[in-house]
């Protein structure tokens, strides 16, 4: 029983750690011992059940890194209590 529980925690950690890292600062990718971007996105994809083939992750990892970094920077300002726009009414005072 304890072994199954231990294995469950290991597999959970294997999924969650890369997810947390993938959503973190792109600049941390070169830390000693850190996973390569390709490896991190492979783990992210596996943990999220995305079924993206490994070969394709090798293609999209670099643009994903750039996109994540750009999104982090763009979302730096405090949004306070601003509500999201949804597709129904983008513009204030729309007739």
């Amino acid at each position, binding site marked *: 029983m304890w072994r199954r529980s231990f294995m469950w925690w290991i597999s959970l950690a294997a999924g969650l750690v890369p997810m947390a890292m*993938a*959503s973190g600062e792109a600049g941390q990718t070169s830390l000693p011992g850190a996973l390569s971007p390709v490896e991190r*996105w492979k783990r*992210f*994809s596996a943990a*999220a059940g*995305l*079924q*993206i083939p490994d070969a*394709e*992750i090798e*293609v*999209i990892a670099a*643009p*994903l890194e750039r*996109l994540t970094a*750009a*999104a982090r*920077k*763009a*979302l730096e*300002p405090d*949004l306070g209590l*601003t*509500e*999201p*726009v*949804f*597709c*129904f009414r*983008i*513009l*204030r005072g*729309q*007739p």
Partner: protein
Amino acid sequence: MSALSVAALGMEKLGELLRNRKLSPVELAQAVLAQIDKQNPALNAYLAPLPDLALAQAREAERAITARQHRGPLHGIPISVKDLFFVRGVRNTAGSKLFADFVPDHDATVVERLHSAGAVLVGKTNLHELAYGITNNNPHYGPVRNPWRRKQIPGGSSGGSGAAVAASLCTASLGSDTGGSIRIPASFCGVVGLKPTFGRVSRWGVFPLGWSLDHVGPLSRHVWDAAVVLQAIAGPDPRDEHCAAAPPPDYLRDIGAGVRGLAIGVPENYFYDHLSLDVERAVRAALKRLEELGARIEPVKLPGIVAATDLSRVILLAEAAALHQKNLRSRRQDIGADVRALLEQGECVLATDYLNAQRARRRFVDELDALFRKVSVLVTPTTPVTAAAIGETTVRVDGDTEDVRLASTRLVRAFNLAGVPVLSVPCGFDHRALPIGLQIVGKPFDEATVLRVGYAYEQATDWTHHHPPEA
């Protein structure tokens, strides 16, 4: 008059000839269909010419005009639609193998409205696969070629529409614009392209890409023609809950009012930072021309533009991936490599990033609102470079190498995020004789002013009178 010269006439002149029965809608349709037969094998602008439907509609228009039942400036005019607008009984591929056999059983609202206005539908145009890209190098139906230089892309995703209008294979065309897909082909093909305000034109019966970013609008050779098409397709539609309830104004009423005294905002940051020399020279000359016409040029700043451009990518990646998730899982092999890679990237966007992007979007809309209290329109280049070669993945811009897709979209994307109306008009040619576009951005629901500025510029220059060589 030759078939090409008839097909190349603008709507104003054609309308006069048709109304006065100096030209029959059937003769006009035949002239345009002859041009499609002749040029389409080289350009691949049309996925499906519709000669039977076109001639039937043209005969109906002829009967009505002969009986003095003229329906207005679109009556008898040859129009095409991008192959993602549903036309009852006609295959709708969306440029994809996934929908190669999809035949809708109803017309899109905008197609219904074109029919009501008496337009003649001559065919459905080629596009980037699923409207998700700007090269129109379609892996399933072949690349669309730019009529000005056939080794170049036409821009996209409404590239078939841009090429068809430029080559006189229709008088106007309907396109869709999620991140520049009307304005980029308008710029690269040397035609006029209008992305109206979000909610101005119904999207019911139009195959989506990004629900909160998709817009529908015309491509045409002249600004007046774009106004006529907008007039026909704009307005409330109970079947599209995003559509605004207010009826559209008369877009032709003040189109010739000129720009004297109008404040034109010219962004000091971002839009003019990184352009090809030819584009910068042409756009600066256009601003000078507008100033000579009496407009007041006001330098302005748009601090949120970089973030808005990046976040519009986050939103589109997530929305398109959600839309196509099942197809990506079950028919991965039927999706082209570039579109598949974008859909896969979209699957990796975090829900929190998507939602925060939609929150930051509100801030950008407010920033633009504040700006439009000071100026009537903004004027920028549409694209920082002219059309790249087919198959090229990078371009040189001002000494740097950039991804073709990012370079082509970086001046247009943010206005999909804001939902404001934007017009692209031709403003010159580069050293290879490839067209350059000028982008005119307006206040929400103020298409009339955007069209007025574009019309004043067009009338003061002769760029829309240039035609590409016959293919």
